[in-house]
């Protein structure tokens, strides 16, 4: 029971390299094929189409950034057009007012990148903060293009106001060459994006989309990830805009505008969000056919696009790409064994860094919580040391879960202080509390439905092992306790399976394993064994006792099963109507008249205020 035979659960080590290489080979193969198409394009396509495709390629690059932000990360943005516009105007303004030269071209390129990155940081700071609603981020993304176009309008002759800038000198490059440049740029960005979204870091984006709070409680600073992502996407969009101005030799406020921003979203939605290739194809098809059809049926064409968009959003939220994919593949699922990494044992350092040192694992002073006039917790005072397994009992509504929340998120409590490993958590968000050593398991299984078991556990390791942006690690190293929980519940056999297919009990166990993978020193468990079978409960109980005894963790446990509590706890705290009414050993609590009264519904204890 003390060591986990890693070889038994693992996949042969050779396969991990093979998988990574096959990923790379696939993307290189596709890219090479696409580049060949781009290379022959100008020779076989009519000039008018070549012209339109150059523009469509650049639009598709921006659509890709929308797909990564919205399709993968769940940030619905109308604002990528603004970054495209910034890139375009960087070129337009420099070439108009300073003339064209290679040096000026570089200057404009640098300005495009710098300005778009700065604006993205500002927008990111506005949009993404702990507790921001997704709607708010979309609102800010809507304000951005409106603000940019208004500024362009008010720029007078400098920005060319509503008619924009045109007729400036630009790169002396033929249209065919532009076709190659824009095409290669699109292939490059698509290939890189494909590697990125399939990498370990890319999975973090999906995890954020699926369950942002869980990510924060796994120690991931979600806001920072989103801001960083936005900056990169903004720079890519600005580069596309720069090329656009270079080839078209015209810039206008519409290219930075809100309508273009929504068009991008429409193309991505029609092509299929979260598929990369769908948005690219969608953009190319729609933009090129618009060029041909809008002359003949101007209003009807836009009407058709609008109708198609509404139908897709209502009936096919994943867009058209998945439909096509299903048609070709016949819905063949990927072999889970091939997908899953090998399991390994991590070297644990639960008391490293901020979590180290200190006298008390948890220390609460006069913690209070109220919602308006409703008092949920008051005067909660207790300390717990390492190696204690502290059970929190009390009837429904006693404030147990609220207390857990107050320890794991600094913004939750209304008053009092909470110290974790002797660090005052102040008003800090959950990911900072994780850094102090807190690991929290929620009351209801709180997992990432769209990820596999292995991916979920990898997300939990993000804080400790920086995920790669290009590849997926072949070995998943987990602390012993997490491995044991997985073996006890059979999860180690389902590493490649999606979480949504797990039973409720397995989800509970997975979440517990994820929290243990954080290597916490203070473990908050809210009914960790609900939905598990009796033998599984016993195993998990054993693991918890071992964690406190051998590894010196402090565990705070909420449980309704008093037999379970009696068996494993070293100390019990009784909450009733938001007050701490009893704090003692198991025997003291079990024999207490008070507890019997509370559980028998004997009414108010000790003049509990309400």
């Amino acid at each position, binding site marked *: 029971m003390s060591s986990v035979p890693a070889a038994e659960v693992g996949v042969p080590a050779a396969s991990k390299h093979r998988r990574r290489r096959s990923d790379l080979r696939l993307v290189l193969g596709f890219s090479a094929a696409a580049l060949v198409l781009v290379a022959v394009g100008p020779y076989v396509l009519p000039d008018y189409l070549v012209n339109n495709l150059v523009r469509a390629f650049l639009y598709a690059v921006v659509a890709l950034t929308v797909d990564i932000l919205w399709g993968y990360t769940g940030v619905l943005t109308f604002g990528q057009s603004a970054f495209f516009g910034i890139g375009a105007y960087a070129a337009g303004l420099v070439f108009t007012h300073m003339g064209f030269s290679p040096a000026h071209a570089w200057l404009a390129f640098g300005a495009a990148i710098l300005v778009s990155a700065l604006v993205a940081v500002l927008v990111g700071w*506005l949009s993404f903060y702990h507790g921001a609603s997704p*709607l708010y981020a*979309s609102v800010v993304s809507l*304000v951005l293009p409106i603000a940019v176009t208004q500024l362009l309008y008010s720029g007078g002759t400098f920005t060319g106001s509503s008619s924009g800038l045109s007729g400036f000198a630009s790169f002396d490059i033929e249209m065919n060459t532009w076709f190659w440049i824009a095409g290669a740029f699109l292939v490059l960005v698509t290939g890189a994006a494909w590697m990125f979204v399939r990498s370990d870091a890319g999975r973090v984006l999906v995890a954020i989309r699926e369950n942002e709070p869980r990510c924060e409680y796994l120690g991931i600073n979600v806001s920072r990830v989103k801001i960083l992502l936005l900056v990169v996407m903004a720079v890519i969009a600005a580069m596309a805009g720069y090329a656009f101005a270079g080839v078209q030799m015209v810039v206008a406020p519409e290219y930075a505008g809100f309508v273009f921003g929504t068009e991008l979203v429409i193309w991505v939605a029609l092509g299929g969000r979260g598929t990369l290739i769908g948005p690219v194809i969608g953009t190319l098809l729609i933009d090129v056919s618009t060029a041909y059809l809008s002359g003949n049926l101007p209003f009807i064409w836009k009407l058709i696009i*609008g109708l198609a*968009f509404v139908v897709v959003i209502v009936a096919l939220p994943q867009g058209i790409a998945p439909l096509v994919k299903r048609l070709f593949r016949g819905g063949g699922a990927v072999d889970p064994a091939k997908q899953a990494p090998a399991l390994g044992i991590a070297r644990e350092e639960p008391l490293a860094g901020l979590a180290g040192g200190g006298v008390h694992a948890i220390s609460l002073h006069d913690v209070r919580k109220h919602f308006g006039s409703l008092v949920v917790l008051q005067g909660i005072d207790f300390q717990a040391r390492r190696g204690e397994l502290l059970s929190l009992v009390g009837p429904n509504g006693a404030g147990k879960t609220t207390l857990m929340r107050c320890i794991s998120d600094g913004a939750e409590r209304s008053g009092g202080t909470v110290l974790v490993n002797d660090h005052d958590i102040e008003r800090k968000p959950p990911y900072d509390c994780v850094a102090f050593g807190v690991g929290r398991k929620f009351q209801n299984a709180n997992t990432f439905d769209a990820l596999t078991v292995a991916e979920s556990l990898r997300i939990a390791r993000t804080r400790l092992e920086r995920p790669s942006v290009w590849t997926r690690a072949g070995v998943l190293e987990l602390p012993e306790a997490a491995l044991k929980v997985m073996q006890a519940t059979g999860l180690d056999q389902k590493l490649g399976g999606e979480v949504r297919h797990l039973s409720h009990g397995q989800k509970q166990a997975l979440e517990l394993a994820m929290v243990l993978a954080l290597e916490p020193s203070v473990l908050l468990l809210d009914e960790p064994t609900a939905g598990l079978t009796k033998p599984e409960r016993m195993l998990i109980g054993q693991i918890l006792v071992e964690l406190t005894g051998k590894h010196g963790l402090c565990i705070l446990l909420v449980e309704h099963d008093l037999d379970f509590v009696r068996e494993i706890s070293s100390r019990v705290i009784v909450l009733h109507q938001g007050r701490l009414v009893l704090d003692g050993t198991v025997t003291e609590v079990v024999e207490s008249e008070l507890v019997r009264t509370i559980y028998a519904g004997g009414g108010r204890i000790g003049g509990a205020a309400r």
Partner: protein
Amino acid sequence: MAQFFDIITTAAILFSVATGLLLVFGVMKIINFAHGGFLTVGGYSALLVTNLGLNPWWSLPFAFVIGFGCGMIIERLVVRPLYSRPLDAILATWGLGIILGQLITLAFGREVQFVQSPVSGAMDLLGASYSQYRLILVFAAVALALVLGLVLNGTRLGLQTRAVIMNENLARALGINSGLVRFVTFSLGAALASLAGALITPLSSVDPNMGVPWLVNAFMLVLVSGISLLSLAIACLALGGAQVLVSVYGNPVLGGLTIVVLAALILRIRPQGFARE
């Protein structure tokens, strides 16, 4: 004095434009991006009344009824399936806005057209001469607020609506047909938008995209107001006032940005905006 009237009337216009959106947002928790389309529908209803040679006052009930009808159809076909996907509802309703705009373009052409105003000329009030119609809009906004307040607080449907706003699941468990409440709410929201469209057209003109600029401002006002008519009125006065002042003392372009930028900042600092709590 004229500036004071500018602020009051601007706030009144914003209030009439935003109430429909507020109602839909409050009850259904979705942002109705087709709101701009409904405003346009109202504008063209007024145009129709002008073209038919009827008394311009007819455009108001006319717009209300047409808006209500559009709302009923759209709620059934598009909005209902999207209730659990609020971000998708934004997109679908935006698509609806495009569809409405294109249908109007096909029917009426894309050019700018003018609507006959029910009253014209200026009147002297408190020592200033001011557009009569803009002043009437203030009364219209106040009347709108009163009627809506009475409906919400004095009728059975209003009570049910408030129950759905507060806790939809509980309301449903108590036997309230929340589907009906949402249906009526969305249709009423569309009708109010259309009415507002008819009210504002005599001030300028109609064109198929007339709703879009209003939509963005209304949307921001609703977000900073939460779900209360009172806080919406406060937000309209505060932000509308800021817009007027920035336009006068700064420049009109910045004035056009005032509401969206201020609202975004307010929400960043105080996520509940002008709402209490």
